[in-house]
Structure formats: C-alpha cells, structure tokens
C-alpha cells in the first residue's frame, strides 16, 4: 500500500514539471519570435553622415533633463581631430515615433572657440526616444549629424 501515495506524488511532480517546461517553452518561443530591441546609437559622440566631422556634445545638466530648458556644448572636429571653429550650426529634432518636433527652437548662442559651440534653448517635454539633427556648414563642406537620445 505505501507504493500507492508514492506513485501519486510522482504523478504530481511530473505534471508540475510538465507545466514548468511548458511555461519555459512558451517564454523561450516568445523571446525568439519577439522583434529584437531596436539598435540605435545613443552615444553623445558621432560621425556626420558624409564623414566630414566628428561631433560630440556635453550638457550643463546631467543626465539630460526632461521638462527643463538647458544648454549643450557641441564640439566639432575633422575626423583627424582638428577643431572646426568657423561652422554655422543649425539644430532641429523631434520624436520620430510621435511625429512631433522640439518644443523650443534651440540655437547656437556663442562660439566658444577651439571648435566648441554653446547651444541654448534645448528642451525635451517627455521621456522616450528623441532625435537631434545637427546641420553643419563649414569649410570642409556641408554635412549633418544625428544624435539619438533615450530619455
């Protein structure tokens, strides 16, 4: 008679393990089939589209704030690292997923020399993926760079 309960408990164990395996299989299947997370470059240092410039920025508030107007300092060099000090820079951007632009119109307010430019009026009014597009016009040529920010 003692064999009887043992068989019962083994059956319970087997069915519990079965459920566990099924749960894991469903999870693994979902992980395999789910689209991979988008791979975007979120570093604050990038190369312009045509490779004419190396562009990086720093912010006066860290981390990049939401709901607060703040400034950036943009550094512009040639790929060889020589500062580009006489560029005209325009800033644009928005949230591609929401189809809206920036809430403000940021501008270069000061050429700090040595390829560094102060950009004022940066503002992000929600968290999420923002794209900042930098148009650069300088002796090496016209080019543009894009920063992707995850806020």
């Amino acid at each position, binding site marked *: 008679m003692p064999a009887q*309960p043992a068989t019962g408990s083994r059956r319970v*164990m087997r069915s519990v393990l079965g459920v566990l395996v099924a749960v894991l299989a469903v999870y693994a299947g979902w992980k395999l089939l789910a689209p991979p997370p988008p791979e975007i470059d979120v570093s604050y240092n990038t190369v312009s589209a045509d490779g004419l410039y190396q562009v990086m920025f720093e912010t006066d508030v860290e981390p990049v704030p939401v709901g607060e*107007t703040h400034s950036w300092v943009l550094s512009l060099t040639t790929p060889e690292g020589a500062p580009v000090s006489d560029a005209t820079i325009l800033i644009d951007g928005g949230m591609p997923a929401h189809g*809206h*632009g*920036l*809430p403000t119109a940021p501008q270069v307010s000061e050429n700090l020399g040595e390829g560094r430019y102060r950009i004022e*009026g940066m503002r992000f*009014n929600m*968290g999420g993926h923002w794209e900042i597009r930098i148009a650069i016009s300088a002796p090496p040529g016209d080019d543009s760079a894009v920063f992707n920010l995850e806020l």
Partner: protein
Amino acid sequence: MAPRAGAAVAALLASLILAACGPDDFSDDERKIIRSLSLAELSPLPDDPSNRFADDPPAAAFGKTLFFDAGLSGGGDISCATCHKAERQFQDHLPRGVGVARTDRRTMPLAGVGWSPFLFWDGRRDSFWAQALAPLEDPREHAGNRTAFAHHVADAHGDRYGAIFGPLPPLAHLPAEAGPKGSPAQQAAWQAMSEEDRRAVDRVFANIGKALAAFERTIHPPRTRFDLFAEAVGKGEEPAGIAAFTPLEREGLRLFIGKANCLECHNGPRLTDDHFHNTGVPALAGAPPDRGRAGAVAELAADPFNCFGTFSDAPAAACTALRFMRSDDPAMERAYKTPSLRGAASRPPYMHAGQIATLDAVIDHYSRAPDAPSGTSELRGVVFTERGRKALIAFLKTLDPIP
C-alpha cells in the same frame, strides 16, 4: 516526504505565477516612472529673473492683499479671487470664467504655476506677473484701467507700495480713468498723457503684477495620496495606510503610465509637460475663431510687459522662454497648454473652455479621438474596457489634495 515536496514545488510555482501577475509587481521602469511623477521629484521653484520681487516676502504679502482686493476693478466688485477661489484650488468650477462678463476660457487653477514657462491656456504671457496684468484690463474680467489702478494703489496701499517698490510717481494731475485697453474715452485720455506719465503709470501697473506674482508663486501643489504611494514604491516599500492603493487605483496607474499614453503630455511631478497640444477639443459655439497657441505667439512677442520689455528686471540673455520660443510650428494650430492633473479629478468641467463636463466624458474624448476643428489632433485613440475607464478615474482621484 515526496508528497510534501510535490506540494512545495506546486506552491512555489503558484506563488511565482501569482507574483508575476499580481498588482505589486511594478517593473523597474514602472517604478522609475512612478517616482518621476511624485512631488518629491519636483525641482525647486525656478527663479523669475524678470521679477526682482518674485521671492520677496513683503511683496508676496502685498500681492496677497491685492489678490483679494476688488478695488482693482472697474466696478469695484471683481478681484482675482472672484474666479481664482482659494477654497476651490484657485479656480471656479465654471466652464468659462465670469468677471464683468463671461470669458472664452476656463479659469486655471494656480498651484504650481510658478514652474510654467508660459502662462494662460495659449501661453500668451511669459511670466506670472505679466499674466496677472492681462485680466485687470480685460473688459470681460476686471474691466479696470491703468491710471485708476495707480490711483487706487496710492489711496488704499500707498505706504506698503512705497516700502517695497519705492515712492509712487506724482499722480494727482492724471485722469481718474485712462488706459490703452479701456473704453474709447479711456484710450483717448491715455493718448493725451505725456510719454513720461504713461511710463510712470505702466511702472506702477507692472509692480502690481509683480506683487501678485510674488504671492501666487507661494501657492504650491499639495501632497496627495499618489505622492505617498509613489514615495513608498520608489523606496521599494509596500505603501501602507492612506498611501495604499486599491487594486482599481493600481490598475489605473498602470494604464496611465502605460497603454493610455497619458505620459506623452502629462509627465513630471506636476503631470504636465508645460507644452501645447491639439487634442481635437471641440470649438466653442458662438465664440470667435480660436487658434490656441498659434494665435498667441505674436501677441506674446509684442507684449510690452514680456521678459524683453522695459519693465522686466531680466537681462535679455535670461529670457530663455522668449528667446527660444518656436514661432513656426504647424502643430501649434489650436494647441492648448497641458494642464496639471494634480487636483483635476475634483475640478470639472474640463478643457480650455470647459467643453467637457465630466472625467468619464474626457476619457471618452481621448478614446474616440475626434478630428480637430482646425489643425491636426495629436490623439491616436485608445480602447478602454469599462473597468479600465473606472480604473483610470480611480487613479486620477489619488492626485486630489488629501482632505
């Protein structure tokens, strides 16, 4: 032994499944978002460099007197508090504010407005003090005029004014009633005044606004049950007492920070992005065309009391809101400011002209996402279950002041 082990494994499995589906299971991202909405995350009140009396306690005390002073109106019967009722979150529960006559816009509550870069539903002013001046001269609101305000301040509050702002200019020779926005007779009287007298009266007028702003800046959003909840969740603790949320409130919070897309505009500790959005709110029948933000940018740029103006205390470089204001954004057509949702549940009716009577009808609006009367609505429509609607409303009520 073996049956007990089986039962233990089953219990463990059941608890794992329950934990994964239970209401307590906020992800790290969700916890981060919940914390970001809490009052504990509110930044210090931003300086207003355009108003050097902004944080001056005597100016704030004087501003409080002026706020309740019906002498600052054409008929001696309207004060700021007529519409901004202190006991009702400084608003009036009317679809549209009523001063001397009914206006075209819902009275806005005042708590936390000192954090906003732009004032009014369409952002047509860039400081609290410039905002406070507009209703004083509006014929449907206070219906007053500038020389009458200056005379009234001299008669009723001369000493307090002088102690804060310095001596009043000579006023005895000026007309009792004159101003650039009054009746034709008042406008003519204003034009007949010397440039110097007009500037002197404008200065007094601006200082009235600066005192009102200093008072209004002291009105901060009160802590709510949500804040208590969010602070506990942020620390990884289980909210207890009044901080504990019902399952329905938790569900509403989940919807709010998730699929209902509320955070796109209602984010940060004040639950507003301080920006302007076209959400397809119906036009007000019988009112003149209203372009919202798109119609306000030029007015703000031309306002003599803006941050660049003569009466501003700020160097132009400090006028950030004005310097980097967009003037060309097509999305601003019929866009209105995102209101804070703090206290909103007990503050019907809703929208910039009180077009929507109840929270339920607001949710219905966001669900249906109707086309905008002009411009393009940003709404994409959200499908809510009946329970989801109830949950969202239950959550919004947790943002009411604790009684």
